[in-house]
């Protein structure tokens, strides 16, 4: 009796758990990417929170390299750029370019622009308002840009 009952129930349980668990099977690990995008769209001043949210999504997605969604590294890089963290921005643009060949033209452009901005920024401002960023050591990270 109980055995036959189990026989009927088991497939049902499997089906139910599948319907709730594995129905939206996705190729990439998105986290709450869409709501992070919208939150930033609605409140563009909230750069810090946006950087933090995207950073968390990147961290979780990177656990499986081929599950990092297209555009995520670039979007995170741009958030870092907006927060003034240019070196890190370049790092993530490069990651996007490495993972997605379709992004190469765009990422090359953004890397070039950011590098140009970086070279112009810490220049000896007469008022001395812009001290060089803490992380920059002379000679570190030569611009190995692919043309």
């Amino acid at each position, binding site marked *: 009796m109980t055995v036959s009952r189990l026989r009927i129930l088991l497939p049902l349980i499997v089906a139910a758990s599948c319907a709730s668990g594995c129905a939206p099977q996705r190729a990439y690990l998105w986290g709450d990417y869409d709501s992070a*995008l919208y939150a930033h769209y609605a409140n563009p001043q909230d750069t810090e929170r946006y950087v933090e949210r995207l950073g968390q999504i990147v961290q979780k997605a990177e656990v499986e390299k081929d599950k990092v969604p297209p555009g995520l590294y670039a979007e995170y890089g*741009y958030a870092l750029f907006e927060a003034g963290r240019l070196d890190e921005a370049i790092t993530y643009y490069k990651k996007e370019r490495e993972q997605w060949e*379709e992004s190469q033209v765009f990422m090359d452009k*953004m890397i070039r622009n950011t590098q140009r901005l970086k070279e112009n920024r810490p220049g000896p401002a007469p008022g001395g308002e812009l001290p060089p960023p803490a992380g920059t050591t002379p000679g570190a990270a030569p611009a190995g840009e692919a043309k």
Partner: protein
Amino acid sequence: MNRRGLLLPLVGVLFLSLGCAAAPPKKDYTAFHAANPRSILVIPVVNNTTNVEAPGLFLSTLPIPLAERGYYVFPVNMVRRVLEDEGLSDPNLVHTADTGRLCNLFGADSVLYVSIEAWTAQYMLITTQVTVEFDYVMKDGKTGDTIWKERKKIVYAPQQQNSGGSPLAALVAAAVQAAATKAAPNYMPLARQANAEVINTPGVGLPAGPHHKEYGKATDSGK
């Protein structure tokens, strides 16, 4: 010459879609397969409604279903900001810009033009009817030709659930539900549903892209 060859089937499809609602006509994917795009540039959406939140909300729902269909999708927020820097902050302006020029700027194979045609909540006695409608057009970066298009309208009115309970309880439940919808009509599930239907429905949706396991298979849309 080529144009006419493309137009005729399209006109035929139009007639069919007007004539027989029962069997949805199969789309002509010739132009799509000829273009064979790997990447999609999603530009800011045009808003033909009065709801100011709609464009931002809707833009954020687009990358996930498109990427899951197998395409490289350019980062939508970054693209929007870069376009602003190029002097294209008005979506209407971006939509009239030359497709080839847009694609060159980003190295994209295709551009997805989306407009919001409806995003409304109609308040009724004990329920709220929410309507969304979107128009999707995809153009090839090389030729500028339209390679895929769809339009989707979804109307949703929460049903009163009369299963089992007393009529009064059902009425109260419906009123509570209507009040909740009234406070903040939730458009997002409808927007996601519209995208999913438009992109994934076999025979009319977007063929699987190069990063999808179904890419190039005979069972795929339009093949």
